[in-house]
């Protein structure tokens, strides 16, 4: 079993500036590590979507905006891990969507993405509701997720995306 190397980890509030910094750091690290362009692009793409999810939903809990991000490498596989608070109602919707996504193969995801792209409406925040489908497509693996119940109002959402 290969040892897991943490490339970058962060705990705090995800701002637009921070997001830019994390992306810049990851890009330069991957460039200097001789990763194939294919893997480099996939990791970058997944990271953009994961970080922007955290960014867009950071306002959901003014008192609990702290999010977690960790990027690690184990053997030839990268993992992008995120953790953030989410209200229970949204957690239920998200859980259902993630379950549906995980039943789909490559072609199924492609079709689901195209249908969602065509019918989606961009919110005032700029989100199009396509992020998780895109993450699943680019990753090529099933999404590993968990919702930890905190109290009647909120849960903590953990997402683990593997790219190999």
């Amino acid at each position, binding site marked *: 079993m290969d040892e897991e190397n943490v490339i970058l980890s962060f705990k705090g509030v995800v701002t*637009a500036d921070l*997001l*830019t910094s994390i*992306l*810049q750091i990851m890009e330069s690290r991957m460039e200097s590590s001789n990763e*194939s*362009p*294919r893997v480099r*692009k*996939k990791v*970058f*793409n997944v990271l*953009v*979507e994961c970080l*922007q999810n955290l*960014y*867009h939903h950071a306002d959901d809990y003014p008192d609990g905006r702290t999010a977690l991000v960790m990027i690690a490498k184990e053997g030839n596989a990268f993992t992008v891990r995120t953790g953030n608070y989410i209200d229970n109602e949204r957690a239920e919707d998200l859980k259902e969507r993630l379950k549906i996504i995980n039943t789909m193969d490559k072609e199924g995801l*492609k079709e689901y*993405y*195209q249908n969602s*792209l*065509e019918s*989606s409406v*961009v919110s005032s*925040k*700029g*989100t*199009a509701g*396509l*992020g998780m489908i*895109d993450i699943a*497509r*680019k990753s090529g693996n099933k999404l590993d997720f968990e919702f930890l119940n905190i109290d009647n109002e909120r849960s903590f959402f953990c997402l683990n995306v593997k790219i190999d």
Partner: protein
Amino acid sequence: MLEMLVLEPSAKTPSITFNGENGKLELRGRSIPENSIEFYKPLIDWVDQYGSSPNPTTVVEVKLEYFNTSSSKCILDLFKKLEKINGSGTEVKVNWYYEEDDEDMMEAGEDYQAIIKLPFTMIEVEEI
């Protein structure tokens, strides 16, 4: 007659040039802004104006390295605008570039091809 729309690139947005005289639109670089609507609005508005007196041919060159899902919706809106003006005073063509081994970017082009009724040419290049 519209002349030229130029949007300079940034760390999160592509360079965009639309030459009204020869009908050539180019998007190049990365498109990963947190909120894409604001960024794409000038282009979408410009296409609206262009449609009233377009060049006989309109060629869209998409040379993107990365784009996020927020941008993907704006790019769809752009293609929808172009789809509308296609055949009424201009013939619109799309050239979609992707780097070798970048199956994801090739598939992204195919996604639009499946939704939009415009002729797409997929062009593999060594580097964008």
